[in-house]
Each structure stands twice: as C-alpha cells, then as structure tokens.
C-alpha cells in the first residue's frame, strides 16, 4: 500500500483517495487532484481495485434498461389535469414573477431586513414602543437610589431604563437577584422582575 506523497501541493494517502474515487470517476474534482489520484491508483493495487469496482457499479447502472410505463399513462395524467377544479390552479402573474425572480435571493433578504429595521425605528421614534412598555410598568419605581420611570424592551438581554439621571443600559439576569454596579447602590424593590436586573450605569 502506498502510504502518502504530495503532488502539485496536494497530499494524497489511501484514505483520502478512497473518499475521492467517485468524484474522480465523474471528473468532479479539480485537475490537480485528478492527477494526484491517477498517480496514486497507478501505484496502489488496493485503491485501484476499489476504483474498478465503483466504476463497474456506475457502468452497470448506466446499462440498466429504460423502464417504460403503460401506454395510457400520459393520457391518464392529462385527463386528471383537465378534471382539476379551478381552485387548485395557482398561477402567478407573469409580471410579478418576473419582478420577483429578477432580484437574487440575497438582495431580497437584505431588502426584507432593511424594511423591518426601518419599520422598528419608525415605531421607536414615534414613541409607540416606549408607550407600550410605559403602560406595563408601574412608574416611577424606586430601586435603590434610582427612580425608574420606564423600562424599554424589558425582554431584551440589554434593555434601556429611564431614570432621573437619564437613560442607562441594564443587563438582565433572569431569576437571579441583580446588584447595582454603581458605588454605594443597593437593591430594594418590590417588583420582582426589576429586581432581576443589574445596572451598569453609563
């Protein structure tokens, strides 16, 4: 068994060659690898035997007789189609299809993301998101030395909190009592959800 060598920067051993044999048979590997595999096969009986066996399988499959259906299969299918009720037909207008298929998938995805971001920013700037969370939190709430007026995006891992000192970012730690990072701060709140936040002021 040939152990290993390098040709054209491609290192070949029996294990690698064995995995490449099908692709080699189908000419679906780069030229450098093709040459390296060919060289290996000329020197390794075991790998060459496997190559011959796989090639024989491929050729046998290619020689299988074409199976033919009943004479009336095509007509039967066409009759079935003719009997399909109109509701099952789902056409796509050509103009829409042309428009949709014109743009590559990546551009479509980017467009959808940007639209979603723009929509959220619009909501935010209009105060809709703030208003929503304002209604869900009793404000102001005294937590330590801070008065909390509003929690924006409480379910986010990094929500914003409006205090008398302005907005600060909060780090959520679910189910665990948090503590203030500010010197001298203590945590005291009857609101369990807020008690789980720890604040790092900015």
């Amino acid at each position, binding site marked *: 068994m040939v152990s290993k060598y390098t040709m054209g920067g491609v290192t070949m051993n029996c294990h690698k060659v064995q*995995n490449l*044999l*099908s*692709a080699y048979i*189908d000419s*679906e590997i780069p030229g450098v690898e093709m040459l390296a595999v060919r060289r290996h096969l000329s020197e390794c009986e075991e790998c060459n035997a496997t190559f011959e*066996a*796989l090639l*024989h*399988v*491929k*050729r*046998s*499959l*290619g*020689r*299988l*007789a*074409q*199976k*033919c*259906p*009943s004479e009336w*299969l*095509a007509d*039967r*299918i*066409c009759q*079935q*189609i*003719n009997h*399909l009720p*109109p509701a*099952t*037909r*789902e*056409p*796509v*207008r*050509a103009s829409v*299809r042309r428009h949709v*298929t014109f743009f590559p998938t990546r551009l479509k995805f980017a467009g959808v993301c940007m639209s979603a971001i723009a929509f959220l920013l619009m909501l935010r700037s209009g105060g809709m998101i703030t208003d929503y969370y304002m209604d869900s939190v009793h404000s102001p709430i005294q937590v330590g030395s801070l008065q909390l007026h509003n929690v924006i995006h409480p379910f986010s891992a990094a929500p914003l909190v409006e205090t008398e000192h302005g907005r600060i970012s909060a780090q959520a730690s679910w189910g665990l009592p948090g503590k203030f990072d500010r010197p001298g701060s203590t945590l005291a709140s009857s609101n369990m959800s807020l008690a789980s936040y720890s604040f790092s002021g900015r």
Partner: protein
Amino acid sequence: MVELSDTATVAYRNEDKKVFDELVHRYHKQAYNVAYRMTGNNADAEDLTQDTFLKAYRFFGNYKRDMPFDNWLYRIMSNLFVDWLRRRPKAHIRSIDEPIRQEEGETTLDLPDTADGPEALALSSELDAEMQIALGTIPKDFRLTVILSDIEGLSYEEISEVMGCSIGTVRSRLHRGRKLLRERIKPYLE
C-alpha cells in the same frame, strides 16, 4: 431546457394546459423511469409519476425557466417520494423467492450463473433485477443521488439543485451509495 414563449408562461388556463400536456407527453417516460428505480415496481412508479405531474401542474406558475423542466420535476418527485415512504409499511423484507412485479407480469429472481464473466452478467435482465433489489435496500437519499447521477446523467451541480443540498453532500451520498451497491451485488460479479 424547455423552450416556452413568453405568451405560454402567462397564466392563461387553456394555454397552460396545452403547454403542460405537451410536457407530460415529452417527459412522462423519463419521469416514470426514475420513479420506477425509486419505488421498485410498476404500480407505485405510475402513481408517483402521476402525482408528480399533478403537483407540477398545480405549481406550474411558479416554475422558473432557468431550471430544466425535468430537473424541476425530479425535485417534486423527490419530495413526494418522501411522503410515499412514510405511508408505506416500515419493514419490507424481500424473500429471494418473492415474485418480482414487472410490466410483462411477475417473475421470480433467477440467480445468474456465476460462471459467466462480468461482461455477460452486466447485460442480463437478472442483474437488472438484482440491481433494482439492491437499490431498494440503500437509504433513499443515496438511492436518488445514484439514480440521478448514474441513470439520468445529471451533474453534481444539477443534483444539488434537485435535492436541495450542497455539492459536497451530493459527492458523499453518491460515493456511499455506490459502495453499498457494490457490496450488495458483489456476489454476482465475482
């Protein structure tokens, strides 16, 4: 690739039906051949072929002309075949004496004379039947990959489009499928 005029692709029902009828007559034998190799018998192959074309007609408006029609058909057939497998009984143990359903009726597997050389066996109907049995024993993803590559002659890239996987996955499935087939039919080649 199917050449369809711009008019034919517009969703006018009568025009669509005419075009589709033509496609059915043009591709039904090819589709049936793949269906037969996947299912292993005539009745299931015809049902699968019919279901494939019906579904293709239903979504004909979504067919993109940049993909060959037969490849698009294979993709539909592949998905329907998964459903077909789920509906059939799990265990399918085939006895060596079990009649094999073929178009010309039933026949039993007549094991080839191993004294014959490999060349003669490769052309015999017995090996055809044995290869079909072997195809039925390998995983469906390997089976379809082998059928599309070695029977239908699709490239790795085309197969990856049909099956919705990477070219590396196609390569792996094809290699493993051929190795399994080699083990299954090895006694008849030695």
